[in-house]
């Protein structure tokens, strides 16, 4: 995808753009808020990676300006380490997601994919969602794998639904923690893994095998 990276630290900007290009993206770099705003107006990007702390106008003002002008481009805010409050500000200001410095490029890539792919997807609550062999109905809390109706506890159902909703995108442990449990801290322990293996066991017990793919060192996904 075409990305705009707004980062004033030239070294980190250089590193991040190289890494993102290695992930297969086109990356344009802007070093301050004004340049970033100009670039968004002049070019067409799929998403913006925006540093929170920028000279002249900071990331928060940039995203506010964009939203006030009706520009709905997906924005991932990059916030400083240990400033939990800033993340909430960032989301309130109109950013779609945030990531904490130092940026883990795989995590950033996973979030960009989920964000850009998930964008066009709008289903009403009554709809069922399908990814290849898996179908979930969030409204009825029901799920089927290869036609077999699955009996799942609520949290495991939510986990499966989240993977189906973001089919073909890798969801990191952190993203799952935020989306399924609605807690923002970084889990040091592997509680997400324990949940996923329990879910996989339960599906296998009922349907023979399971559709969840482990992406080593990164997270989980379901193929569409």
């Amino acid at each position, binding site marked *: 995808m075409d990305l705009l990276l707004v980062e004033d*630290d030239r*070294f*980190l900007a250089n*590193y*991040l753009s*190289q*890494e993102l290009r*290695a992930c297969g993206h086109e990356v344009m770099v802007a070093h301050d808020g004004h340049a970033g705003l100009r670039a968004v107006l002049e070019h067409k990007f799929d998403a913006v990676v925006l540093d929170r702390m920028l000279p002249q106008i900071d990331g928060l003002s940039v995203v506010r300006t964009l939203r006030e002008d009706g520009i709905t481009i997906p924005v991932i805010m990059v916030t*400083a*380490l*240990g*400033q*939990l*409050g800033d993340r*909430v500000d960032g989301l309130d200001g109109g950013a779609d997601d945030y990531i*904490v*410095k*130092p*940026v883990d*490029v795989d995590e950033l890539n996973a979030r960009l994919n989920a964000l850009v792919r998930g964008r066009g997807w709008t289903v009403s609550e009554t709809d069922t969602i399908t990814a290849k062999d898996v179908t979930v109905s969030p409204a009825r809390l029901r799920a089927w794998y290869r036609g077999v109706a699955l009996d799942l506890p609520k*949290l495991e159902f939510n986990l499966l639904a989240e993977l189906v909703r973001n089919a073909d995108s890798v969801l990191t442990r952190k993203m799952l923690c935020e989306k399924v*449990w609605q*807690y*923002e*801290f*970084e*889990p*040091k*322990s*592997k*509680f997400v*893994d*324990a*949940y996923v*293996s*329990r879910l996989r066991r339960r599906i296998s017990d009922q349907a023979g095998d399971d559709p969840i793919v482990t992406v080593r060192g990164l997270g989980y996904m379901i193929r569409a």
Partner: protein
Amino acid sequence: MQRLSLRTLAGLFFLAVLVASMVTAAGTLIVTRRAVAGFVDQRITSESDEIAEPGVPVTRSAAIGRIQDASRRRDSGDIGFLLVDEAGRVLAGNVTLTRSLPLGLSTLSVDDRIPGLTHGRALVRDIGSGMRLTTLAETEPIQNYRSARVRIIVGGFGSIILIVIAGILMLGRLISRRVGEMRHTVEAIIDGDMKSRVPVDGSGSELDQQALAFNRMLDRIQALMASISNVSHDIAHDLRTPLARLRANLALMHREADEPRLQEGLEAALAESDQILELFTAILRIAEVEGGDRRAGFADFDLALLLADAAAMMEPLVEEEGRMMQVQQLPEAHIHGDRQLMMQAIVNLIENAIRYTPPGTRISVGLSVSGALARLTVEDDGPGIPADLRADAMRRFGRLESARNFPGNGLGLPLVEGIARLHRGEMTLENAAPGLRVVITLPVSAG
């Protein structure tokens, strides 16, 4: 020299005032009594001299005439006279005596049976020609006056002593109140409330100045403590950009390295730098929590629901790690706080319980409410922490010898404690006999 206690000093002072008052009162009494007695003596002497001037010969008839005169006169009507000759026969006078009085001044009492006289003074003189003149006066009104005077003196000095006692008591209470305020402050600071200060009334008194000086000392200590805790924060803050660059460089090299040994080394270096960055995240997280800014986002929530959430979140992992999760009765307990941080605290405690116990350990979460306090517990029946090592376990970077073999940075419990403090509560470690019980007490919200 041994210092006197305030109480002893007050006692001695009171004793000194008492003795001084009594001596003064007794002295006054004696001196006035003497003065009054002297006045009566003077009067009978002068009356006696009227009858017969010393050294001037007087005839018997003249003396008798003068006595009769004086007895009739109004100003000397209360004076008694008795004139006798050498044989003791009465020549003139208006009193009779039952005993012979000695020459010179003497005191009369009711025993002398002089009609109408209970107390009195007498002067006996030889006035020549064998005559002996006795002049006497009653001192009864003076006696009555004396008892009034005793009452005045006892009343006067008594009230002075009462005022002194009241003064000592009031001063004592004032001093003990101020000292008590200082002691409360010291105790609050020992309990960890570094913001506690001695109340100052602005009077500028010595005690007030003492309190001000004490408060300034506390300000200084607090500033020093803050700067110490800021050091680790500042280091983490200032080093994160260079470290992020270091990690980025390593990651770029790792991507381009094609030799397996080089790749392996770079992977290890990346893992190390990730660990350092994680440590910095923990330090900055504690600094953020201690800063108290998160209180701005506080909202009411039910601790029981959060605890149930946390237990449900961790249960599969606990089971996978071969431990058992037990959720006790969770009564409703609304608190005003930060759900995210509180969740982090509970999850940290459960993670610790998994990490530092052997498989087969039972991990139990509980909640109780008594009065205005909610008591949240995470306990295990593992090896526990000996009482003398619990303070070490709570110290920043404080890692017990027995925990050296486990991964961790020694910031887990300090973060939980910081979160408890942010919520105006506290964290304590208890012996669960067997095992460790971590208790977080939190004030429940008023609404």
